[in-house]
């Protein structure tokens, strides 16, 4: 990440949404409050508002996705945008075209907003650096770096149930090392001022110096879950693992898989979350995933309103930038 590029317009409003890092509390609160207003749209007879009428949104997923891509598509459509879904893995890039060439060609078709997912950390930023001023980029996950819309929908879901962040203890459990979701969640939770963020994982699945992100590391579930209000489970990203980071899946589940027994160490009304897709019986037991503490499906529903909010905010004021 060399050339500096700001996520902000000159007036301090958001132009891109690439990472939570560097965003202030007020910006995060604005995203959450605006999302709150969009929740209502999903309950109406006509589930559309005209904010992005005439705008073209391109979903550009260089990595596979079901939930994220679908909720972005629904979100853009509820804002009345036209949406194009591309899976360039099967398109031009397999013919040798570079990512930037692909995006520049799409921009030449007068598209307005790109939602980008790529396995390379920094991909969304790189694309933002090469776009004309009126085009906005929303990061839908780049490598191990960031997945900021997921983190926002997670804090939104937490806020619905526990609005008082100052007294909140949150534990993120599992494959922190490979998780862009965890990085974004940690930034969001700390920016919003939660009392404590813990990460619980075997040493092999924690980044070195993880404390510098503002978290307290644990290697034992019983200790780590003590008095916790929110548990966020992460998917074990076996496809990103090179070499043996865990002894066996069975041993991992025994030590770190979330079961009702382990959950008993947390606060009585603990909330259980997971960004999906879940590996039942690997990082989470079905009894917990489908149990009364689970908010996993609310997270999916809330993903639509939160992504509407983020797209609407970055596109606000867009046509004034086209002229300069």
């Amino acid at each position, binding site marked *: 990440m060399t050339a500096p590029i700001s996520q902000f*317009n000159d*007036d301090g*409003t958001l132009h891109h949404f690439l990472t939570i890092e560097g965003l202030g509390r007020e910006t995060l609160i*604005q995203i959450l*409050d*605006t999302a*709150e*207003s*969009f*929740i*209502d*749209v999903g309950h*109406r*007879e*006509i589930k*559309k*508002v*005209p*904010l992005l009428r005439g*705008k073209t949104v391109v979903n550009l997923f260089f990595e596979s996705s079901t939930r994220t891509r679908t909720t972005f598509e629904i979100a853009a459509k509820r804002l009345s945008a036209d949406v194009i879904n591309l899976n360039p893995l099967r398109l031009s890039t397999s013919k040798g075209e570079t990512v930037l060439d692909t995006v520049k060609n799409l921009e030449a078709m007068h598209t307005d907003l790109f939602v980008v997912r790529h396995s390379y950390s920094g991909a969304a930023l790189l694309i933002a650096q090469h776009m004309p001023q009126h085009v906005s980029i929303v990061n839908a996950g780049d490598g191990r770096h960031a997945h900021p819309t997921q983190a926002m929908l997670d804090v939104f879901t937490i806020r619905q149930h526990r609005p008082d962040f100052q007294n909140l203890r949150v534990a993120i459990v599992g494959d922190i090392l490979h998780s862009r979701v965890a990085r974004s969640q940690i930034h969001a939770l700390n920016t919003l001022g939660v009392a404590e963020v813990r990460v619980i994982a075997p040493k092999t699945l924690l980044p070195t110096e993880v404390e510098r992100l503002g978290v307290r590391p644990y290697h034992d579930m019983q200790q780590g879950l003590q008095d916790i209000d929110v548990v966020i489970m992460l998917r074990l990203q076996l496809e990103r693992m090179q070499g043996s980071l865990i002894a066996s899946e069975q041993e991992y589940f025994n030590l770190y898989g979330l079961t009702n027994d382990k959950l008993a160490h947390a606060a009585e009304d603990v909330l259980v979350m997971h960004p999906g897709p879940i590996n039942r019986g690997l990082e989470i037991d079905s009894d917990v995933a489908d149990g009364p503490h689970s908010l996993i499906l609310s997270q999916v529903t809330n993903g639509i309103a939160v992504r509407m909010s983020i797209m*609407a*905010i970055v*596109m*606000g*004021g*867009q*046509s*004034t930038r086209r002229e300069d």
Partner: protein
Amino acid sequence: MSQIRLQNIEDLLQVMSTALGRYLERTPLMIGIHTGGTWVAKHLHASLGLSDVLGSLDITFYRDDFTRIAMNPQVKTSQLPVNIDDRHIILVDDVLHTGRTTRAAMNVLFDYGRPKSIVLAVLVERDGRELPIQPDIVGQRLRLGDHQHVKLFGPEPLRLDILEKPV
């Protein structure tokens, strides 16, 4: 501005209430536009003793200048607790100026349902219309200069003021 005299708010609300009396037999549903319109509507709703709960509309997502200005950081949620299909609506705003807010509000309403009729009640009607929209019920009519702006402060007590825009 010595020529422009703002009337007492209580008097304006009284004028509006009396004029709205002729719509009461339709058992209308009253809806205020955020934020000033909701304040005014609250008073009218109480003095008319309407049975249905007061609704409120936020038009942020329907503004026609959205892509020219940034998102309003204080978006409110529209609250329409009653089904508006086939209902007679009294839409209330504080100031009718260009007509754009009213247009946006009607667009919002039609995304919630199909009302039987809509009448527009405003505390102040000023000049400067940019769309063919006129009020049915008016508290006070004002003619203001281009550099002038009438604003309602509230919620309690309600106070109208004429502000001079910096040239």
